[in-house]
Structure formats: structure tokens, C-alpha cells
């Protein structure tokens, strides 16, 4: 039973030390990054992705004409998609460009009617060229500006009025996110909820990924449990007989019979419950985790963006740089995840999805704690970067 050697006290100290030391190490490397030209482009992309309409418009212009110095090749479709993002946010020039794209079929299927509605939105914001087009073609009255709804791929957000910072367009700008790369929030939410419920219905236990890791790491316990159970099963009959004889001697036959009836019920209920919680062997948890990885692979391959990458992305490099120190930080972060989820009794799936949805106090508090600290740390990172 003596699992713990004195040396175990080194581990928490090590974790704390790494946490304190690793971030400054990593952050020091940050400045050298901007040298790279493609890095400059990724700054624009980052800024555009966070919803900055001006950045989106600039990026779209880069794609529209191509910028050799930055390694941007001409890409009409990308240009259109970024123009559209800025346009939806009420960027007049971008709205004009979207109109042009629709009128001449640049990066999108030609549709003069849709083009017109975008020109009108731009015109209403005072874009002179758009106003000229509108008045020149004399179509001002054909499509009313309010309620005009230019059809745009994958988005139903263009219902916004041309004044444009009303609540609809604000909501649109926020919730769209990267909806051409990722699922919309309601689709994602529905899928996660479906997984949470169906997992419980199929497995008899609630979804919780950190427990799977736990089962994987403590796989020996499964073996020991199996052995102990086999031993118990062998001896059970003999033990029961002995106990029964002793009980009859002590309390009399009639009383013991009664006792056994009530006890049997309770015991079988208990056994059923326990069976449903432990029947999945640790190897199935391994399968679960391995297939999670495969799921990510399939998603990336089918989306056409699978690529072996040595970095977690430009946003990650913005904070932690690239190379050894960022990897040390990942190990540290991973350790915090593993340690923290076991200490807190759940992760984003076990506490967040399965627990919060059943209003479990531990889960609500736990989810508050990990979301809160993640938000705090993210803002600190942002301030340091």
C-alpha cells in the first residue's frame, strides 16, 4: 500500500516551478517572429478573424489583387469571403466590393439583383460610386433598402439595416465567427448535446473524457479488480454457507429467512448499479481516446486542411513563440490539465456538459472555476503579448 515515496513531494514543486518559469521564457522569444513576411500576413489574418472590419477589408483587397511581397497569391473567392465579412459589419467600401463581386461574378456566382441590394446598402452609407450606380441604373425604387436581403453563401445575416450598427448586424458579426470554416453555434451545440445524452443512454455512464484518461493510466487496477473478483466468485458460495450457518445459530432460522429476502433485493439492486458503472474495460477507454484522435484526423482530411504542423498556429506563437520553450510550456499545461481535472473531478465534458446540464453543484462550481481561470489567464496572456 505504500505507494508514495518521499520523492513524490518533488512533483507539486516541479509543477509550480515550471508554471512560474516557463511563461516568461516563452514570451521573450516573441519579437523575433515578426521578421518573417508571411508572419505579417498572419497578423492581418488574425486581426481579420477577430472581427476587425478594416482588417477584413484590407485582407480582401490583398487577395483580390495578390501581393507578391507578402506571398499572397490572387484568390477571388477568398477576397469575396473577406469582403462579405466586412460588408456584413456595415463597412461601406466592402459592401460596394461585394456588389461588384456579384455584378461581375468575381469569386461568387453572378447575381445582378443581389449586387443591387449591396450597392444600395453602400449607397445608403454614403459611398459615392455606389450612389452613382444606383441612380444611374434608376433602380432606386425597385428593391427597397430596408428589409433588403442579399443572398450570401451560408449566411442569413444580411437582413441588417443599412445604418448597420443595429443589434442584428452586431449579433451577426459576433455569432458568425468563422462560419465558413466551422459549424455555427447552434449546430455545434446540438451535436455536443446529442453526444452527451446518447453517450449516457448507450453506455449507462455519463460522458467524461478525463475519467477515460484516468482509466487508461490506472489500467493495472482493472487487472487487480478482475483478479479479486474471480477470487471472490470462487469463494463466494463457501463464504455464504459459513455466514448463513453462523447467523442461524445466532438468531434462529425464521428471522434469517426474512432478513435474506429483504437483503437480496437491496443487494441485487446494488449489483446492477455497480455493473453498469464498471462494465466498460479500460481498453475500451483507450479505443475511445484513440478514435477521438482519428475523428480529428477525419475532420481535417475531409475538410481538405490536413497538414503536419510543428506549431499550434500563429495565435499560439504570438504568445509562446516556437520551439523548445513552447513545448515545455505545453507539457506544463498538459500536466495542469491532467492534474486539475482529476483534482476537480471532471473536465469540460464531465463537469461542463454532463454535470452542469444536471445542475450538479460540484459541476457548476467546477465549471465556473475552470472557465474563470481560463478567462483570467487568457486576458493576462493578451496583456503580456
Amino acid at each position, binding site marked *: 500500500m505504500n505507494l508514495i515515496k518521499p520523492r*513524490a513531494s518533488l*512533483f507539486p514543486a516541479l509543477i509550480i516551478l515550471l508554471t512560474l518559469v516557463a511563461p516568461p521564457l516563452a514570451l521573450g522569444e516573441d519579437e523575433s517572429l515578426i521578421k518573417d513576411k508571411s508572419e505579417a500576413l498572419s497578423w492581418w489574418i488574425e486581426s481579420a*478573424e477577430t*472581427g476587425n472590419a478594416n482588417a477584413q477589408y484590407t485582407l480582401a483587397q490583398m487577395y483580390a489583387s495578390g501581393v507578391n511581397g507578402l506571398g499572397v497569391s490572387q484568390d477571388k473567392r477568398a477576397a469575396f469571403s473577406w469582403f462579405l465579412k466586412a460588408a456584413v459589419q456595415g463597412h461601406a467600401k466592402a459592401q460596394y466590393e461585394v456588389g461588384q463581386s456579384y455584378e461581375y461574378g468575381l469569386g461568387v456566382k453572378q447575381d445582378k439583383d443581389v449586387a443591387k441590394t449591396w450597392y444600395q446598402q453602400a449607397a445608403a452609407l454614403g459611398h459615392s460610386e455606389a450612389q452613382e450606380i444606383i441612380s444611374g441604373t434608376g433602380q432606386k425604387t425597385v428593391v427597397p433598402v430596408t428589409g433588403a436581403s442579399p443572398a450570401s453563401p451560408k449566411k442569413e445575416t444580411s437582413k441588417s439595416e443599412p445604418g448597420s450598427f443595429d443589434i442584428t448586424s452586431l449579433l451577426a458579426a*459576433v455569432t458568425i*465567427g468563422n462560419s465558413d470554416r466551422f*459549424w*455555427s453555434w*447552434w449546430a455545434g451545440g*446540438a451535436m455536443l*448535446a446529442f*453526444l*452527451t*445524452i446518447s453517450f449516457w443512454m448507450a453506455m449507462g*455512464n455519463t460522458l467524461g473524457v*478525463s475519467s477515460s*484518461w*484516468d482509466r487508461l*493510466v490506472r489500467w493495472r487496477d482493472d487487472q487487480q479488480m478482475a483478479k479479486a473478483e474471480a477470487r471472490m466468485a470462487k469463494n463466494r458460495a463457501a463464504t455464504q454457507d459459513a455466514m448463513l450457518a453462523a447467523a442461524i445459530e445466532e438468531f434462529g432460522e425464521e428471522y434469517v429467512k426474512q432478513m435474506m429476502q429483504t437483503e437480496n433485493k437491496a443487494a441485487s439492486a446494488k449489483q446492477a448499479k455497480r455493473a453498469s*458503472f464498471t462494465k466498460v474495460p479500460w*481498453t*475500451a477507454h483507450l479505443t475511445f*481516446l484513440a*478514435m*477521438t*484522435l482519428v*475523428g*480529428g484526423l477525419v475532420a481535417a482530411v475531409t475538410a481538405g486542411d*490536413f497538414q*503536419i*504542423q*510543428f506549431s*499550434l498556429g*500563429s495565435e*499560439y506563437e504570438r504568445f509562446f513563440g516556437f520551439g523548445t520553450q513552447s*513545448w*515545455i*510550456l*505545453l*507539457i*506544463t*499545461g*498538459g*500536466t495542469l*490539465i*491532467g492534474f*486539475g481535472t*482529476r483534482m*476537480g*473531478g471532471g473536465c*469540460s465534458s464531465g463537469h461542463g456538459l454532463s454535470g452542469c*446540464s*444536471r445542475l450538479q453543484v*460540484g459541476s457548476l462550481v467546477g465549471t465556473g*472555476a*475552470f*472557465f474563470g481561470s481560463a*478567462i483570467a*489567464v*487568457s486576458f493576462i496572456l493578451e496583456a503580456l503579448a
Partner: protein
Amino acid sequence: MSTSTTTSHIKMGLFGLTMGYALSRIGFSDFGEVHRLFTFADLRLLLTFGSAVMLSMVGFAIFARGKKLPKKPLHKGTVAGGILFGTGWAITGACPSIALVQLGQGYLPAIFTIFGILFGVWVYPKVHARFFGWDTGACNV
């Protein structure tokens, strides 16, 4: 026994596959997206998570009525553990399933996160037994 083992492998495998695929398509495995979730720069993931909890609540209310489900009690480690995990999540952009999804998508550094998770999960029971030893309301720790 062996058929039920096979079934549990198939079931768990399918859940893993679906979950990994979905998490990737939702964008939970993208460091930038997750960072924008925590800095409120983009509310999409927050809405995703919130709506998932709401819909699950409806689902459990309908299907789990009167059934016994594992309890998630509050104990001494809940807040501290949550804070540690949240810190790790903000740094790596990963929670226990996401690190695997990231690796599957080709992000090799996720291997380091996975090693970290394995180490953390492995070391926790030892630290718990040595230093904490409080009741977690579960018999497995």
C-alpha cells in the same frame, strides 16, 4: 463476456470518432478560436457550449427522469482543480479530448500536451494520497 467487451469497444470507438470529428468541425481544437472564446472576442464557441448545456438539460430531463446518474458533489478539490485545469486550457488551448483532436489534425506539438495530461493524471492520485486525502465522494480516487 467477450461479446460485451467487443460491443463496448465499438460503442466507445464510435463515440470517440463522432466526438473528435465534431469538436474539430466546431473549432474547439483551434487555439485561436478557443483564445477568442476566453477573451470574448468571438462568442460563437461560448454560445455553442451554452446551447449544448441547455439542450442536454432538456435531454436529461426527458430521458433520465427517475433514473440514477452519477453525482458530482462539491469537494475540497473542485475549485482548486478547476483553476489548475482552466490555466492549462488557456495555455494549451486543449482539454482532455482536444489534445487528441489537435494531434489528429496534424498539430504535432499536441503530443507534449498529451504527455503532460498522462503525467498529471498519473501523479494526481499519488499527490492526493500523500498530501490531500479528502473525501471526493467517489470511490475511485
